[in-house]
């Protein structure tokens, strides 16, 4: 008798606790007063450390700040490299991922994506004059980042290329500089930002071809529809009131270190 009663009490409290545990993430964020976001820390101008303040700043950080401000909470940044993005999200260490996160069907099985806020294509950096056509890649050693779509695309489209994957883009670039690899691959805008900050940028070039068309969105945990629609609404508002353009200008505008024309606005139709 006593055991049955104990079992009933335990089961009952477990049920109550588990339903409490399924409180919405959006509510949790508001209650905690803090939005935890994963961003890059070594990828200008998306997310990098400002040497003067030792804080992480960048395009992705500005978008994250906009969401946090709209929620009325503080922003807490967890620096990440491409390989750890999904792990941080699925193990609940962060609430959102703002790290130039490319949207793919495979990834959609693990995480949800917001409406895209950036568009790019996979490109390459090589020493001047060495890479002219995509077909050359089959004979080269190509540096990539672990856990990125760029690596997967190069592997699928150029099966004879030797791919060496590093933990983050600056490592790959260091390998390019020393000659360990002959080209590195990443999203075009990231490569532009990388070269802008390198002292010997005259030795390198970004060949004009791309091998893909990608869209980047905010990573949202699966099963949080209210959080997802909140992020989507915030992004659309930012575009509507011009803040999105403003943020873009600050990092990629004509006066920035890495000027790039803005070809994609939030809400534009995606070309498949």
């Amino acid at each position, binding site marked *: 008798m006593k055991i049955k009663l104990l079992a009933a009490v335990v089961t009952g409290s477990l049920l109550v606790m588990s339903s409490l545990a399924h409180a919405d993430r959006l509510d949790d964020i508001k209650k905690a007063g803090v939005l935890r976001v994963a961003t890059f*820390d*070594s990828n200008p101008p998306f997310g990098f450390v400002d040497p003067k303040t*030792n804080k992480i700043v960048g395009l992705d950080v500005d978008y994250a700040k906009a969401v946090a401000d709209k929620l009325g909470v503080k922003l807490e940044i967890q620096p*990440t490299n491409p390989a750890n993005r999904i*792990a941080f999200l699925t193990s609940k*260490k962060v609430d959102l991922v703002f790290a130039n996160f490319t949207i793919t069907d495979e990834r959609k099985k693990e995480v949800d994506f917001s409406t895209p806020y950036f568009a790019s294509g996979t490109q390459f950096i090589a020493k001047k004059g060495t890479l002219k056509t995509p077909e050359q890649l089959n004979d080269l050693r190509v540096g990539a980042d672990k856990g990125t779509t760029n690596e997967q695309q190069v592997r699928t489209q150029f099966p004879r290329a030797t791919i060496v994957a590093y*933990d983050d883009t*600056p*490592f790959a670039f260091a390998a390019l500089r020393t000659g360990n690899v002959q080209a590195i691959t990443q999203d075009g805008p990231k490569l532009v930002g990388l070269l802008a900050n*390198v002292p010997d940028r005259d030795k390198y070039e970004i060949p004009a071809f791309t091998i893909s068309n990608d869209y980047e969105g905010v990573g949202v945990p699966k099963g949080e529809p209210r959080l997802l629609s909140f992020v989507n609404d915030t992004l659309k508002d930012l575009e509507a009131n011009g803040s999105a353009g403003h943020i873009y200008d600050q990092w990629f505008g004509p006066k920035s270190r890495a000027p790039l024309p803005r070809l994609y606005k939030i809400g534009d139709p995606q070309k498949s």
Partner: protein
Amino acid sequence: MNDAFSAILANVPYLLVGSFPDGPLGGAALTLVMAAISAVLSAVLGLAGGIGLAMTRGVLHTILLAVIGFFRAIPVLMLIFWTFFLLPVLLHINVPGLATVVAALALIGGAYLSHSVFAGIVAVGDGQAQAGLSLGLTRWQSMRYVLLPQAIRIMAPSFINQWVSLVKDTSLAYIVGVPELAFLANQVNSRLMIYPVQVFLFVGLLYLILCTSLDALATRLLLGREAVAEPRAIVTPLPVPIQHRK
């Protein structure tokens, strides 16, 4: 060379404490904190494991050996992957990155120390254990009052070695985004881009200072003023000339 020097010098405060106090503690300070917590936890686990090995027999002993063996066989990197990626999924709770690394290091350190503690207890000798028992102490009491104090003195060098390598193993936390010294060194190197030799040499030097001072401090505390033996030459004497006997 001067540019490199001044560039690195400008980053020294960041490398030492991270973005504290504007952000979480990082850099060398975080390394020390993580090493300290892991050291305490692994000492506790090691004592428990060692005493367990000494006091159990049969199936329980074998199971304990197997568990300890598992943690001595798995690479630290893999265990950090496990605790970081899968522990939160299994336990349905949010485990901060710092805790996962400390847990992994404590488990591995504890496994190694269990063997050292066990070896120390065995080295104290059966005679002491039996003397304790013949004095009327229970097995647990003789363990606590007779064997352990002597064993700890024998095992102290092992403990110190383990703690020093803990400081080095914290450098693996960079893989999961914990902002300790190696992680920040990589960040700084990625930003400066053209001074990898200088940055890594400097960080290596920082670790060297940390480890050697920790070693000296711990040896002094645990073993008094007994200095670690200088390596001495091993000299085989020249052959004795065969003398004619009268």
